[in-house]
């Protein structure tokens, strides 16, 4: 048995890193178990000319394709959207696009405003100082003054507009629709030891420059200097509960595959919306036969993804092509509810400017706009460097039939039951996608784009894993309380995307981390009465 720690954090990604750093000031003994290893920037794809091909092998977004030793399989056959993630120190912040919008104030009050789903037990104003603290720790670039958001000041200037941004801006101005430079977790100046972005492109599968904020290079160096221990290549099998119903620690397999028990006073789960319910459902006992913290029966239920669409075409003007960050602008024009559109809630538009030349050829061939044979060369020269692309990120409302359970057959390399995802896109979201795709077509038409293509839903877009251990004030309708503590197990906290009550219509990482900092602060404020 290992020495007992005060706080055991499981998962070192977006939320685990933030909570570790925040709690470090308490001088408690804090340990984080991470199933993956440290990554090396010198191994990242853009170091080599084969960088695009690695997106289909060791840097594939799907763990089922990537199959690194740190990955676990996910049965997502019964879902039109496949789960994508990354397992290493930094978690999926190693492999994300660093698009970094906050949820809007209305996202926390959807029941009050629109009569759907549930209100959150926290609100934007409560989280605002933690958003700001997270922006500072992460190093966010952006521009103050966006009329779509309450005022906030990103610490670094925005990513450049470039050719693509200018074309998009002109088009959106022509339509009279909102656009703004995205808040991005990408350094545009020297920042906290990180080098600024040099426009490598291909941001999602890890940044060789280190400009993209993954928590292995943001929070973790600070947390480790403050005394937090991070133990890698350790896969947790289950959380153990004692006769008193309190968590006593976790069973895990160490780097040599040897089973270990790590005792702890407090356990913090930070494995996100698939990993966290998987672990809770695998943590059964006589007292908790349906899994830990699951008296509500809601562990694993209400999975939300953000169903995605991509609308793209080709304009005559030269665009940024393979150069620059993947995303540079957003539009919140259609974010808030307008029932005349035929659906409730809304979506944000994201303008993707970067695509590698090989990927341009692959997608063009698949879409039927790039022929085989002699005509290939002329056609390709009309496509490459001319793509204009609109991404749609729709709000996904919670539905209990969308869920994570344990697969009865599939297991990971340690024999631990793997997660199974059952998911369907709701009628409301389908109507939202209909509307959004038409707006995307309208944008491309206004830009004079040709050969317009629609991908809907984007299959490998299940980055945003939300809602499967929701927060709330009612123990019968939620898994954790308003500050992340399990209703059932008083020394068990959840700090990741699984506690989202609703999904909002924007990328969630920024809000996940603000929530983690808020929960860490709540723990610090209540240390003397934490288990009452």
């Amino acid at each position, binding site marked *: 048995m290992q020495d007992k720690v005060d706080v055991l954090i499981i998962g070192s990604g977006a939320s685990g890193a933030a909570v570790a750093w925040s709690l470090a000031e308490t001088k408690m003994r804090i340990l984080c178990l991470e199933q993956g290893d440290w990554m090396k920037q010198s191994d990242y794809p853009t170091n080599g000319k084969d960088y695009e091909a690695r997106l289909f092998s060791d840097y594939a977004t799907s763990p089922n394709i990537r199959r690194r030793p740190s990955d676990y399989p996910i049965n997502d056959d019964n879902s039109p959207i496949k789960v994508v993630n990354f397992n290493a120190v930094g978690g999926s912040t190693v492999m994300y696009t660093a698009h970094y919008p906050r949820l809007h104030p209305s996202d926390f009050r959807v029941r009050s405003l629109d009569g759907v789903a549930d209100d959150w037990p926290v609100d934007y104003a409560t989280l605002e100082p933690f958003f700001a603290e997270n922006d500072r720790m992460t190093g966010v670039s952006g521009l103050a003054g966006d009329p779509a958001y309450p005022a906030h000041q990103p610490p670094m200037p925005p990513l450049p507009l470039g050719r693509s941004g200018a074309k998009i801006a002109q088009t959106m101005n022509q339509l009279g629709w909102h656009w703004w430079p995205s808040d991005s977790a990408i350094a545009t100046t020297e920042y906290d030891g990180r080098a600024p972005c040099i426009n490598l492109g291909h941001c999602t599968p890890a940044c060789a420059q280190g400009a993209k904020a993954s928590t292995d290079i943001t929070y973790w160096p600070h947390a480790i200097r403050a005394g937090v221990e991070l133990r890698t290549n350790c896969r947790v099998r289950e959380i153990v509960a004692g006769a008193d119903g309190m968590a006593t620690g976790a069973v895990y397999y160490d780097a040599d595959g040897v089973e270990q028990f790590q005792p702890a006073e407090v356990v913090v789960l930070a494995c996100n919306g698939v990993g966290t319910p998987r672990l809770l459902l695998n943590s059964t006992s006589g007292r908790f036969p349906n899994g830990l913290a699951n008296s509500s029966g809601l562990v694993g239920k209400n999975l939300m993804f953000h169903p995605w669409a991509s609308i793209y075409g080709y304009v005559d003007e030269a665009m*940024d092509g393979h150069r620059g960050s993947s995303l540079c602008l957003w539009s919140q024009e259609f974010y808030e509810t307008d029932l005349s559109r035929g659906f409730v809630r809304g979506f944000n538009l994201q303008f993707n400017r970067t695509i590698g030349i090989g990927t341009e*050829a692959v997608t063009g061939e698949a879409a039927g706009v790039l022929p085989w*044979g002699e005509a290939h060369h002329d056609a390709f020269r009309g496509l490459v460097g001319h793509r204009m692309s609109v991404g749609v990120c729709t709000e996904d409302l919670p539905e209990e039939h969308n869920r994570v359970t344990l697969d009865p057959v599939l297991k990971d390399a340690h024999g631990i039951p793997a997660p199974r995802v059952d998911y369907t896109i709701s009628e409301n979201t389908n109507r939202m996608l209909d509307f959004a795709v038409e707006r995307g077509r309208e944008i491309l038409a206004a830009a004079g784009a040709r050969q317009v293509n629609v991908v809907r839903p984007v299959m490998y877009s299940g980055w945003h894993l939300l809602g499967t251990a929701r927060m709330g004030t009612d123990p019968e309708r939620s898994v954790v309380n308003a500050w992340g503590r399990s209703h059932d197990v008083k020394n068990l906290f959840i700090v990741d995307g699984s506690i989202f009550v609703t999904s909002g219509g924007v990328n969630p990482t920024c809000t996940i981390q603000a929530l983690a900092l808020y929960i860490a602060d709540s723990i610090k404020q209540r240390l003397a009465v934490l288990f009452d």
Partner: protein
Amino acid sequence: MTEPTLTPTELDDLRWLAGMIVPPSTKYGVPGADDAAIFADIANSIGRDGAMVSAALATLRRLAGGPAAILDAARGLEVAKLLRAEGGAALAVLTRIVLLCYYRDDRVMGSLGLEPRAPFPKGHVIEQGDWSLLDPVRARKPFWRPVP
């Protein structure tokens, strides 16, 4: 990348097919995807996709009624057209490997006006752009939805 697992016949057909997908171009002065260096890259890049590539080549062989690499030009075009219609997911994998290897060849990149190099460490230059384009958006009143 791992060693190719295809048989010599499969490799012959794959090379033939690569040349059908992207033939050489005198207009642009570029080799085809069946060029020796490019094809060596393709063959060495199959790796974990070997089963899918083999499946696509089996379909090709069925449609050709035997080895495709020995077909005459007219029949070859006919078979390639059939394959593109029937190849499915396996052909998509094969085509992806061919195209990704082709477009990282130094000669091909050069013909497109690109430096034949990895993105890192040199990176690229993106112009800052005209931020006055934001003026009409700045002029809008805040429109985020107030909450009770």
